């Protein structure tokens, strides 16, 4: 699983993001020993958590003892760099986070926040999971998802296109076709 010749494990980062929301349930479960052990078992070396407006603080760890190195922060102006350097992304179900990650071609597990009222976010996550673009989980099922995931089976997501809408709008308003 990515070991270089001198036996040192290659750095493989798991990036967790909750966007601008508060999603303590996700941060807690990711910080749990079960999940951290499972991530280690699957070859990840670092865990970086963007915790947003949450109040639960994960426990930092340098990972010197061979366990998962853990770090966290609240917000950043752009998570694009963190997404780019990640080998696995675990995200809340916000459409912005989801599509930013999919566009970068990163493997993604979306975790649905059951505490949100009128959980329309789960519709998008479930639909994309059905189309095999990502894995979808709840905080309680995250561990099994990580254990059983086969990232090679995920299908790449082709970016969307707004030109059909623009064409229809122009046509309606009577503008000539380009």
């Amino acid at each position, binding site marked *: 699983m990515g070991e270089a010749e001198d036996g040192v494990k290659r750095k493989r980062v798991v990036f967790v993001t909750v966007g601008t929301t508060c999603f303590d349930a996700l941060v807690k479960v990711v910080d749990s020993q079960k999940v951290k052990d499972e991530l280690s078992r699957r070859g990840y070396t670092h865990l970086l958590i963007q915790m947003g407006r949450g109040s639960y603080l994960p426990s930092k760890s340098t990972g010197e003892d061979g366990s998962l190195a853990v770090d966290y922060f609240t917000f950043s102006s752009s998570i694009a760099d963190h997404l780019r350097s990640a080998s696995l992304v675990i995200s809340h179900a*916000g*459409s*912005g986070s989801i599509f930013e990650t999919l566009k970068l071609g990163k493997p993604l597990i979306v975790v649905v926040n059951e505490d949100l009222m009128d959980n329309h*976010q789960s519709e998008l996550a479930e*639909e994309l999971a059905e189309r095999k673009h990502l894995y979808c989980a709840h905080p309680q099922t995250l561990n099994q998802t990580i254990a059983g995931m086969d990232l090679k089976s995920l299908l790449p997501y082709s970016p969307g*296109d*707004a030109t059909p809408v623009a064409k*229809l709008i122009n046509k309606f*308003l009577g503008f000539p076709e380009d």
Partner: protein
Amino acid sequence: MEKNYGCCFSNLSSNFPITCFIAFITIILFRVLYVIYRTGKPLSKRAPQQPLSTLIVLGSGGHTAEMINLLLVLQKDRFTPRFYIAAASDNMSLQKVRVLENALADSSGVKGISAEFMQIYRSREVGQSYVTSVWTTLVSMAHALWLMIKIRPQVVLCNGPGTCIPLCVIAFFFKVVGIRWSSIFYVESIARVKRLSLSGLLLYKLRIADQFFVQWPQLQRKYPRAYYVGCLM
């Protein structure tokens, strides 16, 4: 004899305001029906040199990102001047579109930007009680009316946030009373796969939107007057 005339006159004078009122209501009703009938019918041919003033409603998070995706493929010289409205509590959205407009001005070499940026009081904050929401909705409608009177857009683009409802209702009202005829386009958010948002439902059912776009086929099956346009993101 005089008594008869007296009765006649008093009947008429007490009926006159009522008659006026009924006539007024009937005219408004017919006007509303006419607007609903005309809504959704394409406009006649237009030269690209005849731009349309455009109101663009922004919303937090994914809404603005989706709207920007749409704006990138719209010919800016056809949709000008552009007026951006975001909720008062939403600072990021206006920042993002300012960046977009600045880049546009830089690349086209046009001095100054043909865009204005405004904020509107929200009808309801996320999690706000529905009781206090009644008052805040009234305040936001008054504010929306004030902004709309200033802008009087010919095109309205919106994609879901609650802020668009007062603005679209007022645009409809302007059509009824003849202040300004506008074409209202609504793109339901990509996050809505099986159910419409409340804003979407209102604009669809009340036939306020001229064209209603959905990004997933399941919604087009449920709401046949909608256009399925695939994912924008």
